[in-house]
């Protein structure tokens, strides 16, 4: 029973493909997977926009959307109709072709990230030998589309936003990749499917996920902080800081193009959370050994929803960083921590199993964290803020 439910979509795909002539089968099978990814993640995007607005509303002591449909859950449909019927305004000075291409390429790149994410057991579109590398390669294309958007709008705020976004994304890409490298070191593979397989199995009822090792925990935290910065979300939302530069690189976009940017941003966030789940949280594996009867894809989406709620929570809680704080944090805290974490992962690999290994590696994570944090905080003096012009 559990097995049937687990492989339900895989069998369905095989059954549908079985009707096609043999020459078309591989194309049809890929096409079906692509359609499934498009539909499911676009739906998840719709759900997330409501959840985010309602969650933020609750955090800020207001209701959030509650008029369209039951509890406001049909709000995304209204939003979609609105953005489709809005006039598509392109500034006269804008570079028309690049202005049009930017959101399109962004969404294409964002969707192609899902090709290597294992959503469930046997549910991955392309099991590439270099899956993780593919993911990072495609996400670096997204940086260029943001520049295209900002530059082609011919607007100082757009250009400022794009420059901010690129500076931020390049800075945080380094700790992001270094944090992922620890997992690649531990598994000896760049394939996402192999990485999930290496985390299978349980000790007692607890799983062997990488997040439950000292280096894995540190790596996961570093990865998720860098992922927040990569997806330009609060507290790292300087590129679109609405109080400073209107909406950053998509200031000059309206109607459905704006919706596409919104979609691309959320898809990027889901994808990078999915990669975090794959690398550190055991992918589609159940968190406790007696829960394995629940289908694997449900676990993946449950973990993804938890990550999304954490993102919403962080967005509602933390204030935006300043540019110098952002850069200092990346280069003086995240980068040394990520590099030390690589050493920790190596030490963990070569020490014999047992308590000693745990002790040494935990020390290797905690001591640099405390020292680095203390060291960087030394110059800080929290005083009453003095305003030069406002008073």
């Amino acid at each position, binding site marked *: 029973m559990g097995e049937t439910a687990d492989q339900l979509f895989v069998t369905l795909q095989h059954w549908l493909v079985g009707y096609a002539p043999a020459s078309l089968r591989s194309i049809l099978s890929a096409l079906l997977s692509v359609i499934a990814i498009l539909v499911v993640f676009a739906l998840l995007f719709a759900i997330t926009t409501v959840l985010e607005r309602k969650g933020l509303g609750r955090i800020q002591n207001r209701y959030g959307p509650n008029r369209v449909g039951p509890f406001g859950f049909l709000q995304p449909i209204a939003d979609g109709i609105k953005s489709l019927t809005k006039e598509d305004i392109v500034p006269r000075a804008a570079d028309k072709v*690049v202005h049009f291409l930017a959101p399109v390429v962004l969404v294409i790149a964002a969707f192609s990230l899902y090709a290597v994410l294992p959503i469930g057991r046997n549910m991955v579109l392309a099991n590439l030998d270099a899956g993780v590398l593919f993911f*990072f390669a495609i996400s670096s294309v997204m940086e260029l589309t943001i520049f295209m958007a900002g*530059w082609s709008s011919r607007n100082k705020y757009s*250009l400022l936003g794009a420059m901010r976004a690129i500076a931020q994304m390049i800075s945080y890409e380094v700790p992001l990749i270094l944090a992922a490298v620890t997992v690649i070191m531990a598994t000896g593979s760049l394939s996402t499917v192999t990485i999930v397989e290496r985390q299978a199995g349980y000790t007692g009822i607890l799983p062997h996920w990488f997040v439950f090792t000292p280096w894995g925990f540190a790596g996961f935290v570093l990865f998720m902080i860098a992922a927040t910065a990569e997806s330009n979300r609060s507290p790292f939302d300087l590129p679109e800081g609405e109080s400073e530069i209107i909406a950053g690189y998509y200031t000059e976009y309206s109607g459905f193009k704006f919706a596409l940017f919104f979609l691309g941003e959320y898809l990027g966030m889901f994808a990078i959370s999915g990669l975090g789940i794959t690398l550190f949280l055991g992918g589609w594996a159940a968190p406790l050994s007696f829960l394995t009867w629940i289908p694997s894809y449900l676990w993946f989406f449950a973990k993804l929803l938890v990550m999304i709620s954490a993102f919403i929570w962080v967005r509602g809680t933390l204030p935006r960083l300043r540019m110098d704080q952002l850069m200092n944090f990346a280069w003086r805290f995240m980068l040394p921590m990520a590099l030390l974490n690589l050493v920790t992962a190596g030490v963990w690999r070569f020490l014999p199993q047992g308590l000693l290994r745990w002790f040494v590696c935990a020390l290797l994570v905690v001591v640099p964290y405390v020292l680095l944090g203390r060291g960087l905080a030394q110059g800080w003096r929290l005083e009453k803020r003095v305003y030069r012009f406002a008073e």
Partner: protein
Amino acid sequence: MLFLIFAMLTVAGAVAAMSLRNLVHSVLALTVAFAGLAAVYLQLGAQFVGLAQILVYIGAVAILIVFAVLLTRDSEASPLAIVGSWKGSGVVALAIFGILAWAVDHSAASRQSVLPQPEATMQQIGNALMLRFALPLEIIGLLLTVALIGAVTIAMREKKEMR
């Protein structure tokens, strides 16, 4: 068939990069050429090289060029001074093409009628880099670090002089 499409894409991107008047457009066209090249690598089964091409050239080099273009000069007013000596440059280009074609035609690889499919998995590439070619890798790493520190030093000195 696929190779033809990718090759056309690469060549078209390169031609556009040379001929477009707007510098940022040229950079974007260059990116298309990089992407076409990456697609050719991927089609040939060289996953690592192809993906590294995207990661390094589109993700880093293109953005670096864009920054350089935006920070150094006005990208709008660039009266592209096309060099008049078409004949000279044409001769140089033809000569280089001829030498390359001759070299490729006479190389050992082209003599075998059917090339053996090279089977290089990610693991083999990693092992080769970490074991056999560890020293060159380290030297390249050192070289890049030196270049990075040098660039920062030069930039910092300029800032001091300006004050």
